[in-house]
């Protein structure tokens, strides 16, 4: 396909691709908060909780407070793309699910455990209490979400590697081994930190209005550092992953379908780095800089997701599926989907407002 995503596809296919990428983007935003946030909290657990006026303590306390909500948001935001991925790719997606089987299904109990561990992370007793317990809970939660991310990556890569399917089945293997899994996972993991930094920075920006100046300055520098290190590691792992990909995937990633979006992703990285650089040096979070960082982050995620889709589309016989997409589009229900998407977005926004107001009142 020599046209820019999603142009050039039949209308129903283009519609489902757009819906998939848009809804997956929302999932990735929250997923990033969870993946990077729990890793941050695990590391923060190595040191006893500091008095509330240090930058790190504020970042961790926000993370601890919001993590259960973020986990449920990440999970529920995964539902819409999981529906669209099935409409779009069918056999490839299902086969990978079935081959990984128990390994794949284990993300359900693992996510439940991870979810409850994020509640434990909130407890004051744990934060100030026994070191060993803090480590078990902190690293336990991070491991649960890390494992889930690994499973999605493994599933995605396996779904594109038709050549190994029968052999894997015959051997009864429930682990897919490929040298690109780790660099790809590293890319997701490192890329999660800049998103986390942006979201937490907004939270700091709106809750720290009355905090003492030194504390605000420290938080601003900490968060800028987290973002900058994350971004650099993301770019480095993306380059490693790119070189380790099979050549066809590499061509697809930088092919006409995703080239403009890769440019957007690159600009996003530069804009984010610039915004965080200014935050670090000015030692303050401003609305304009945070808006810049947010636009940059969205651009980077969008570009990455579309490059990801271009690789998948080039790896499978996608045209064969067009007629099934067209068939799905005749069934109806799209209006209701859109209506509920709007209602749900409003409900989530309302939840945010309620909880934020409650938290501000608590802090006051």
């Amino acid at each position, binding site marked *: 396909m020599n046209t820019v995503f999603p142009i050039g596809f039949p209308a129903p296919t283009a519609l489902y691709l757009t819906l998939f990428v848009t809804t997956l983007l929302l999932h990735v935003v929250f997923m990033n908060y969870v993946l990077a946030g729990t890793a941050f909290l695990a590391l923060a657990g190595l040191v006893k909780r500091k008095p509330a006026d240090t930058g790190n303590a504020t970042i961790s306390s926000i993370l601890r407070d919001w993590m259960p909500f973020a986990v449920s948001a990440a999970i529920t935001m995964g539902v819409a793309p999981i529906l669209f991925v099935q409409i779009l790719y069918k056999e490839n997606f299902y086969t990978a699910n079935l081959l990984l089987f128990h390994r794949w299904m284990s993300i359900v109990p693992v996510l439940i455990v991870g979810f409850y561990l994020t509640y434990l992370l909130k407890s004051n007793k744990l934060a100030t209490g026994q070191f060993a317990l803090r480590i078990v809970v902190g690293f336990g939660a991070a491991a649960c979400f890390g494992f889930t991310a690994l499973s999605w990556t493994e599933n995605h890569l396996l779904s594109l590697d038709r050549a190994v399917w*029968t052999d894997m089945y015959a051997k009864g293997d429930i682990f897919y081994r490929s040298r690109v899994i780790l660099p790809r996972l590293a890319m997701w993991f490192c890329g999660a930190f800049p998103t986390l930094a942006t979201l937490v920075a907004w939270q700091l920006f709106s809750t720290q209005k009355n905090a003492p100046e030194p504390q605000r300055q420290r938080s601003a520098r900490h968060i800028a550092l987290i973002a900058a290190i994350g971004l650099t590691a993301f770019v480095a792992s993306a380059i490693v992953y790119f070189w380790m990909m099979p050549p066809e995937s590499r061509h697809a990633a930088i092919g006409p379908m995703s080239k403009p979006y890769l440019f957007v992703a690159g600009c996003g990285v530069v804009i984010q780095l610039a915004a965080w650089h200014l935050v670090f040096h000015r030692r303050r979070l401003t609305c304009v800089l945070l808006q810049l960082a947010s636009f940059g982050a969205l651009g980077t995620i969008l570009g990455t997701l579309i490059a990801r889709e271009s690789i998948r589309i080039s790896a499978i016989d996608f045209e064969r599926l067009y007629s099934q997409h067209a068939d799905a589009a005749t069934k109806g229900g799209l209006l209701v989907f859109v209506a509920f998407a709007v209602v*749900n977005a409003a409900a989530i926004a*309302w939840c945010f407002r309620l909880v934020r107001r409650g938290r501000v009142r608590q802090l006051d």
Partner: protein
Amino acid sequence: MRISLLVLYSIAAWFSLFWINGILTWQLTPGGWTDDHRVWSGFFNASFWPSLVFRTIVALTIASLVACIVINTMHEFSREQMRRLQNRAAMLLSPMLFMPALGIWFLWVIPSDSRSWVLGGSAAMTMFMSIAVGASMLIGGYAVAGLIRQRLYINGATATLLTALAFGATAGGEFVREGVRKPFTIREHLYSNSIKPEEVQYLRKHGSVASDPYPLKDAEKYPTDQLRLGAAVFRFQCSTCHTIGGVNGLTHLAGTWTTDQKRMNISKLQHTKAFMPPFAGTPAELEALVQLIEWNHAGAPADWRVGADSKSLDEIETWLAEAGPNAHSDKPMETHK
């Protein structure tokens, strides 16, 4: 704030029930979807409403009983305060009074063969249905007589026991809900083994596993190619519901039949047991399956004969033709809408 969040949460949770209920009930009574294949014709199907209201009441019941357990853990309350709180929570049990009517409504609208299984046609389904009804009656009786009329205090142990009963009843009900769909996953459209009714004839002619790209995991354990073919047929057509020698195992169910009995009963599978789909393979595949069952029943010996001469294969072909390609219940759905 908490109350607002809780209300929002319960509305959202109920909507989950609403959507999933539409999908589950459509699988059993696809109704108008059969003709126009439109989402809403299938979603608001004949069993949608009774099932939706019934499930809502089940959710209220479990919530109320769990609340009674939680109240018992709140030691800051006096016993009298706990009792009053529990009696308030128990009001959520009162809609259970509508359960019998909703249950009858549900049974009324489902296909007649499905209904006949829970009403005695299938021992397992009838038993699970009875457990669900019995447990619900016990809970309902206790709720009305003890909690609502006499306003009794209910201790943690009793509340836990009642909750366990409620979960038991729910499990029984779900077993029945899953069971009455057989032999379909989507009534009239997709059999439980993922074969579509319109594919049966083709598979009987061309073979069900001829183009299966996946090798057997344990091919070397079978002494003959025929047994390997039988294992592939078993995997494709039977293994979604059966094992070979374990739970619901074919050797337990059919091991004692004579060879000819197996050939005929499997050829006429949908008549042998109405909740099974028709056999969808060639006579040679059917014979291979028969041999697989016999070999396993004989203790999986190292040597095994190759079964069936051309006469038996012809016989199988005749039986398959007599049975026809449709499920026993493949007829216009007899639902009372």
